[in-house]
């Protein structure tokens, strides 16, 4: 019961974000998520790999300008569970597992349609209580073609892995 209340609260939080000028979900996941929650889902099922790519014009921080001379190809490489009425999902967050791999590349006149607002790219789920791992983006490059000269790479850890 407590868990359901928590998840519903999280959904309301997300809807509130969606309808304000704060981060907006980029894909249908959160809508599906909210719809599922209204049916009272409390468990997760089927742990699978759920990779995705989202390119951005380079930015290093929360509020800095989107660069025109460099871009980042972000490869999300972690696993996730799916919300379900029944079932169990054996996924954990692992401090040694990659979460996102970033390829910083040279670009020319990198253009974005979102220089300011952090937007929700993906939600991934793990653990028996369907905890959420949010992935946010800004300065998205709509063409998703950050393929210029490689400058350097970086990784972030603590990714979700199926057990």
């Amino acid at each position, binding site marked *: 019961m407590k868990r359901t209340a928590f998840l519903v609260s999280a959904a309301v939080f997300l809807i509130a974000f969606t309808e304000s000028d704060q981060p907006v979900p980029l894909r249908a996941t959160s809508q599906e998520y909210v719809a599922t929650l209204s049916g009272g889902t409390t468990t997760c099922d089927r742990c699978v790999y759920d990779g995705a790519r989202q390119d951005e014009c380079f930015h290093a921080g929360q*509020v800095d300008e989107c660069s025109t001379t460099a871009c980042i190809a972000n490869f999300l490489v972690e696993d996730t569970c799916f919300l379900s009425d029944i079932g169990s999902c054996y996924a954990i967050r692992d401090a040694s597992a*990659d979460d996102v791999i970033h390829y910083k590349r*040279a670009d020319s006149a990198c253009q974005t349609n979102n220089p300011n607002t952090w937007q929700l790219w993906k939600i991934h789920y793990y653990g028996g209580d369907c905890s959420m791992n949010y992935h946010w983006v800004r300065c998205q490059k709509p063409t998703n073609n950050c393929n210029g*000269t490689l400058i350097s790479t*970086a990784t972030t850890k603590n990714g979700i*892995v199926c057990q």
Partner: protein
Amino acid sequence: MSTKRIGWLLWRFVCKVLPMFLFSGPVFAEELSVKDYLEAYDQAFLSAFTVTLQATYPTNAFDGMQGSSTATVTIASDGTQQALRLESSHLDPLVFNSARIGNQYDDAGNYTISHHKAEYVHLGADSWKTRTDFEHFTISPQNVVLKKTPASPLNAVHPKGHPDPANVLFRYLLPLGRGFAQLVDEVVSVEERPSGISIVRASGTLFSDQSGTWLLEVDTTRDYLVQTARFRRDGADYDSVVSPVSSAGTLGAEIPLYREGSFSIIPSYAVSVRLTDYTRQATMSLIHDVQEAVNAVGRRSTILDFGRIDGDGMPLVLRGVDLVE
């Protein structure tokens, strides 16, 4: 004299003689062989060598507040394959950066940052592979490094000819004056200076499929070493610049290399190198070790296969599988 003959002479004057006065003697592309020289020297150089150098570069390309890193880089080639090993040896003190992105901080608010502890590149006959061992640091708001996690590898498999692994290897050779022939497509013009320097303008690329224009200064008196190179990709408002330090001299009698140089890929990211050892023999043990390293995969290793890209441009991702063919 016929009208046809006069017209022909006029045409010759406009095409050949007039430009010589206007542009200090350019020569037309079809008459030039500077690209052939560059290719011949690069081919001879790559046929057998081992170099060891000190490289300095930004510790983290994603965080301009961090300082520089120094690494020992060893590269060997036997004519059919090239191998690189990079081992980080020094880091400027790391600092807490409060302006980064949310997932860069742990639950206690400490800043986490990754660093290339080691790198391996193998450009083999069939496939090109890389491995980067990332070390992750946790830094407190007081600039104290609280934790350094063991290096974890990221392996990548590329089809032969893919620009990324070539970039990671040749970025340390270009500042020494070699390796440009692969980047030049078509020579547009050459201006030969009395000093023996040839100014070459050419179309080409810089380790990507984005085309642009090269401006090379080739020292024909020093075995066609490239003493300066600028590349501007089409549509860009800045140059990538390779700047060997010709005043520091050269190393090697048969096929010389500059001793020092730098490569600025974008204005905010430059690699500086200093050559410490150069032999005209391939160190096969290094090639073998690198080959083993790029094929070694741990249980939590991530492997990106750029030979299998989906419709969204995402490489196939594998985890903890054996890469040995």
